[in-house]
């Protein structure tokens, strides 16, 4: 009897899934039919922009701060008169650390709220999920986080670093420090896997050996074995592309295993000031990070940004690279719109080339061809105060090269 009942439940569940799948297909076709008719609603005295970040789940640790700094930029711009005389009206959505949710919310922001541009996404998985949505609807996304490169979409502006502005300089730094062997640890999704492919190509061309690579699912908190493998490999340095709060578990385990920044330094590319604070300085002191901006970066523009952020969100809140890139992205969009004299997506894109902005990280310039921006690369060391102090920088902004065309060793990657 129970067996039959079980089968009936199973059959019911299957039917439900089938119906849901059919419904999904159905809605897709209607979308395509009307896709051309969507454009931003700028008829009122405000212009809506979408903010799409994870406010819950494993990525919230990082993405909430990005949302905060976008809000700061929006408020500053509104206080100074808005964009083309219109006040910006932000519409926030929660991507919930779930990639299909990101796509769904992007669709909602574009089609229902009819926003002029969307600011957000953190993981490459979420960006890849929303990319077709933006391309289909011909809407604009400003993506503020460093990523694995090898991508270029006419409807995405990448205001974080591509690989030649972060990972490659980070590797150059390690090479200069005399590191000969590396161990790669990352989360199991597109950014770490692609980044590690690039790192391996770089290592091969530069006489370095990669002793091992390991991936943990996003949100994974069991790092006993990976730490053992890292430790027994005896590598000169670890290149860490873990994302979200897996880093908490990894660094706790790393310290428990007796590994330190002097015995085996870790270079991280997704740990900024905010993450240092929540992982705990006791676990991270002395470890290295590669970014384009630190809270400690000198300059008047940064002093103003840090002061404004702390005044709004609390004196104990640090500022970080993705936050800065997100803050800058709103100003870049404003400059593009003003240069174009219109909110029209195609006109904004045409106007983008050569736009510059005196950002907290220093001068940034939009490259109209790749829709990335020229940025200065930096390597920093986590201090006892939880802030990151710069130990090296590239001296001048590096031109974005998302497909690494100017690096002969990267030939086989894209």
């Amino acid at each position, binding site marked *: 009897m129970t067996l039959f009942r079980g089968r009936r*439940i199973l059959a019911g569940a299957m039917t439900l899934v089938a119906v849901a799948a059919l419904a999904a297909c159905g809605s897709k076709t209607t979308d395509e039919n009307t896709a051309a008719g969507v454009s931003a609603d700028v008829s009122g005295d405000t212009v809506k922009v979408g903010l799409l970040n994870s406010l819950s789940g494993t990525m919230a*640790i990082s993405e909430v701060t990005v949302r905060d700094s976008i809000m700061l930029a929006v408020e500053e711009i509104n206080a100074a008169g808005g964009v083309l005389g219109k006040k910006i009206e932000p519409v926030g959505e929660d991507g919930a650390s779930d990639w299909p949710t990101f796509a769904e919310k992007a669709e909602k922001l574009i089609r229902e709220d009819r926003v002029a541009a969307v600011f957000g996404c953190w993981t490459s998985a979420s960006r890849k999920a929303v990319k077709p949505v933006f391309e289909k609807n011909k809407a604009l996304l400003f993506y503020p986080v460093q990523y694995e490169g090898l991508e270029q979409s006419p409807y995405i502006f990448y205001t974080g670093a591509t690989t030649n502005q972060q990972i490659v300089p980070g590797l150059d730094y390690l090479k200069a420090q005399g590191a000969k062997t590396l161990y790669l640890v990352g989360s199991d999704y597109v950014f770490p896997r692609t980044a590690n492919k690039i790192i391996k190509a770089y290592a091969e061309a530069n006489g370095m050996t990669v002793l091992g690579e390991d991936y943990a699912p996003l949100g994974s*908190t069991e790092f006993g074995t990976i730490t*053992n493998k890292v430790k027994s490999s005896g590598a000169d340095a670890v290149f860490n592309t873990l994302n979200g709060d897996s880093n908490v578990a990894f660094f*706790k385990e790393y310290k428990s*295993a007796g590994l330190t920044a002097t015995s085996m330094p870790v270079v991280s590319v997704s740990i900024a000031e905010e993450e240092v604070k*929540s992982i705990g300085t006791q676990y991270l002191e002395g470890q290295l990070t590669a970014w384009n901006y630190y809270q400690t970066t000198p300059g008047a523009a940064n002093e103003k940004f840090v002061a404004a952020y702390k005044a709004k969100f609390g004196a104990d809140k640090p500022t970080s690279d993705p936050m800065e890139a997100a803050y800058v992205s709103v100003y870049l969009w404003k400059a593009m719109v003003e240069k174009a004299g219109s909110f029209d997506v195609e006109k904004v894109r045409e106007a983008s080339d050569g736009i510059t902005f005196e950002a907290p990280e220093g001068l940034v310039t939009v490259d109209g061809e790749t829709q990335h921006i020229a940025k200065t690369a930096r390597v920093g060391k986590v201090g006892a105060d939880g802030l990151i102090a710069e130990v090296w920088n590239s001296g001048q902004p590096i031109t974005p090269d998302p497909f690494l065309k100017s690096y002969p060793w990267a030939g086989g990657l894209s």
Partner: protein
Amino acid sequence: MTVLIGQLFTGVSIGAVLLLIALGLALTFGQMGVINMAHGEFIMAGAYTTYVLQQTISAAGWSLLVALPVAFVVAGAMGVLLEFLLIRRLYARPLDTLLVTWGVSLILQQLARDIFGSPNVQTRAPDLLTGNIALPGGITVANNRLFILALAASAVVALTVALRVTPLGRRIRAVVQNRDLAAVSGIATARVDRMTFFIGSGLAGIAGVALTLLGPIGPTMGTNLIIDAFLVVVVGGIGQLKGTVIVAFALGVLQASGEYLTTLSVAKVMVFIAIVAFLQWRPQGMFTLRTRSLA
């Protein structure tokens, strides 16, 4: 050799974590047959209890020690409340219990989000537990892992003793073995059920305290643990503690060695395949309790 021993220790410590999260379930699901999907949220409650206590008592070591009994009572009380309000009305309807407790688990997750915010939080570990003990031969044993191992061992011992020698334990075993006969013998089975649920849920709270030493605390942490917990209890066999203990450590060592030889994801697949194969061979689990009850 060093690596092998290090890996063995990692496996055993993964097993200890599995054991802690499954022990409470072995009581509520294993002994009482209640499929409680909210068990993971009781673990979460224990973890958040540690977090709250650390906000109040700033010394990390003391707050952890105080958290153990407090988390036991907090999670246990939540369990009793759940049993009293919902589960006791559904003892004859296991599938409905599954749905109801799943609903409760979603409500508790949202509650945690509303109280503590969606981003995960962390606790500071006491200095004593962040270090490690170096053994000869370059083997290091992490203190927090040792602590969890000791905690799991004491929980098993305490629970075994409680079930074997205390009057309550005798009553629990009587109810498990033959509910009707226990009832006619004058045992208040409803009260025994409530106490069993209190202890089982309380153990989940203790597991929550232990987990704060390893990773972050978040509203969804329970969902990630509940599947592992059920696997351990199902494979171990219903109605017995020793099956749960053996299977927890076996799966831990299997996971660690698989992960060492391949990758984390492949190791997970290997563990699942091993479980499926085992259950094909012994659907009733490793050990079963023979009873004369008619159910």
